[in-house]
């Protein structure tokens, strides 16, 4: 039994924290709400740290690390609300690596930034591959794909794609007329591709609506499990980011509860505050256990990865929501003001829970996995 970080993983986490500490990311998160250009460019730092190549195998010039390591980095990014494009980047690199794509060395070197265009794998209640819709709960069809030789033509729209703005290569999933999924790598500047940057509530989260109008890309010849894996990897990453952000909420709240006095004593001594913060800790610790599960399962028990990643997302999404709301509560009125950092974590919590199918869908996926196992 060894279910703890290795020395290398501790170092990786410390290095990530150190690298990100050179930027005032949280202050920038506030400023960027009114001035989008205010975000620091953390990409060169990410490249220097080798993050683009984390999940790329060594034979393709990557570091050949596991999802567990990538989740630790995502957690650190979440901790300081850093705009590192992990959600778009890492699932894309995993798909490219599985396909042995020629762009890998450039991607690993950080010279070419790919973004994953998410498609949700079928479930017991939804037999199609689907995409996040522009609005509402009705799932959109994944882009229509036609395959000719090694070339794929895509038609369709995927809304709210993380990290699409500025990406140079889109790693997308379409569905054929028969409903089979097809993966393709499309140049972002190719004819028939349009990416409309959108900002919603959390300025640190780069989003784009991606439209393919007879856009052509090269086929990534990978099995359907790889395409599903990308979806769950994105879930595990958003869970890790959420855990990191929630951890900061807890630390800030605890510090304030120790120094703010009412009626002659620190507010953290009141059970109402103490129990709420203990609940934040409980939820975050549960999220951490599931982050470990997801990281471990992707390497060692891949058939459990969908369950593990969905559970991690479900618990971490709710944990961050609770942690951010508690941070506001514990700070009193000041916690709900523009100048305070609590609203930035609140914004992160609210938007993140609605991306990539939403936390709600991840919870449903846990149920679906459990029910299919029960029926089997």
């Amino acid at each position, binding site marked *: 039994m060894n279910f*703890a970080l290795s020395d290398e993983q501790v170092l990786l986490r410390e290095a990530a924290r150190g690298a990100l500490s050179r930027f005032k990311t949280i202050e920038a998160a506030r400023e960027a709400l009114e001035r989008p250009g205010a975000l620091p460019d953390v990409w060169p730092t990410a490249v220097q740290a080798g993050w683009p190549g984390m999940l790329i195998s060594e034979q393709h010039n990557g570091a050949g690390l596991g999802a567990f390591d990538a989740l630790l980095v995502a957690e650190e990014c979440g901790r300081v609300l850093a705009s590192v494009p992990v959600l778009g980047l890492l699932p894309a690199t995993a798909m490219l690596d599985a396909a042995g794509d020629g762009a890998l060395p450039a991607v690993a070197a950080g010279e070419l930034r790919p973004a994953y265009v998410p498609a949700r794998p079928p479930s017991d209640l939804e037999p199609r591959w689907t995409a996040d819709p522009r609005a509402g709960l009705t799932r959109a069809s994944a882009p229509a794909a036609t395959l000719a030789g090694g070339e794929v033509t895509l038609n369709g729209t995927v809304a709210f794609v993380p990290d699409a703005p500025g990406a140079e290569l889109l790693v997308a999933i379409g569905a054929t007329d028969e409903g089979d999924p097809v993966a393709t790598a499309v140049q972002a500047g190719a004819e028939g591709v349009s990416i409309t940057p959108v900002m919603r509530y959390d300025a640190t989260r780069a989003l784009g609506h991606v439209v393919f109008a007879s856009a052509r890309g090269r086929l990534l010849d990978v099995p359907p499990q790889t395409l599903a894996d990308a979806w769950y990897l994105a879930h595990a990453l958003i869970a890790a980011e959420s855990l990191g952000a929630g951890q900061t909420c807890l630390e800030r709240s*605890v510090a304030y509860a*120790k120094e703010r006095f009412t009626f002659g004593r620190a507010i953290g001594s009141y059970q109402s505050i103490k129990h709420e913060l203990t609940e934040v800790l409980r939820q975050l610790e549960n999220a951490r256990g599931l982050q470990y*599960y997801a990281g471990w399962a992707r390497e060692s028990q891949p058939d459990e990865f969908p369950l593990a990643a*969905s559970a991690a997302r479900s618990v971490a999404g709710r944990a961050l929501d609770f942690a951010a709301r508690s941070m506001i509560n514990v700070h009193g009125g000041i916690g709900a003001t523009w100048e305070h950092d609590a609203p930035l974590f609140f914004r992160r919590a609210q938007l993140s829970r609605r991306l990539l199918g939403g936390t709600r869908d991840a919870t449903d996926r846990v*149920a679906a996995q*459990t029910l299919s*196992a029960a029926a089997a």
Partner: protein
Amino acid sequence: MDLNDTPEQAAYRREVRAWLEANKAQAPPRARAFEDERYVDARRRWQRALAEAGLAGVTWPREYGGRALGAIEQVTVNQEISRAGVPGILDVIGIGMLGPGIIAYGSEQQKSRYLGPMLHGDEVWCQLFSEPAAGSDLAAVQTRARQLEPGELGIFVDGEGGRREPDDSGAARSSEAGRRAGRKPEGGRDGGWAITGQKVWTTNAQFASFGMLLARTDPDVPKHKGLTMFIVPMDAPGVTVRGLRQISGEAEFNEVFFDDVVVDDDAVVGGVGNGWATALTVLMYERLTIGFGSETFASPTRLSDAIAGDAAARTDPAVRERLGAIIAELLSVRFNGYRALTALSRGQIPGPEAGLAKVTMVNAGIAATDLGADVVGPDAFDTGSEWSYLISFLPGLKTAGGTEQILRNTIGERVLGLPPEPRLDKGVAFSQLRAKEREAVAGSGFRGASR
């Protein structure tokens, strides 16, 4: 990152598994009700077999019959016993909590007298700590142990040190210890203590031979200081055990009454006035014991099968959302358990944060039975239903081993470092504290809503 055993752990697991495989035919069935004496005897014999095979008292020192192994081996044994579908030891409280307390604080004579029969199931033990007015605030126990004056009465001691003839009639239970002097004293030594009070939530008291009892020996000092731990024979005159029925109607606990129960000076564990330290040690082992057991509790299969078998339930978004949340919580307990085991196998003792797993487990269990009842309907409450026991059992489990509120206080203070609430009992003699409490109650009379 590896959930597999190390080669040494794997070898130990094979050994344990092989023994269980070869001997499980002689194991009694797993059951939770200990109302049938023959079943209790069968469980004693099974505990003896486990002890002789080294599967009871795994972490105890060798000189007391244990195997001197680590917590990770204890967990391996628990897992293999669970896997074999056989019951574990009968006396979890004795071997898991009280025995280690005696090993830490007991005299050599106490260790040699009590530990062997405890380990082998010949003498089962119970924990006599909580009282009707002392649960979360355990140091508020009111059970009084009064030191007998020299010559006040003869102490009956048999050659074994502590066993006494059982009283033959309730009529002999007088409130005056002195009157007992008239009954055939076997020893006649001076000294000893007379214990009077009430304990509650006492598991296994109905068939226990001994109890470890926390009593107040000095009410005129602050409450944590005036406590002493005693070993009390459960068949001593003046001990009355009554079953305490719970929501389900079953009696899994007892309340135990002490009416001038006389024990020898040798019954003191860890020194007079040192009872709180002894109690804390026992409670630390309680946390470990509960922690080791938590993985096997609340299997979600029953719930997922019930939902999967109902066409409307399995496609109902609200049912699915609740199921998904429950499963995710249970999974988090399992994988946090692996984190805790890793720490244990590296020699780290679990801290109070282990209590979070209990909170999650119990609340997920309650949510699971609630959802199960929604799906099954009123039949879930039928006594023959596989749901009814848990539906009735779990609300009380929230409080067992420390209320959820006390757990959250402890974790908030020890893990998050939040300041404690101001206390009104610090440095106040227990006797004065009680007087203040009574005054406060008298002064707080409800004056009605018209005020």
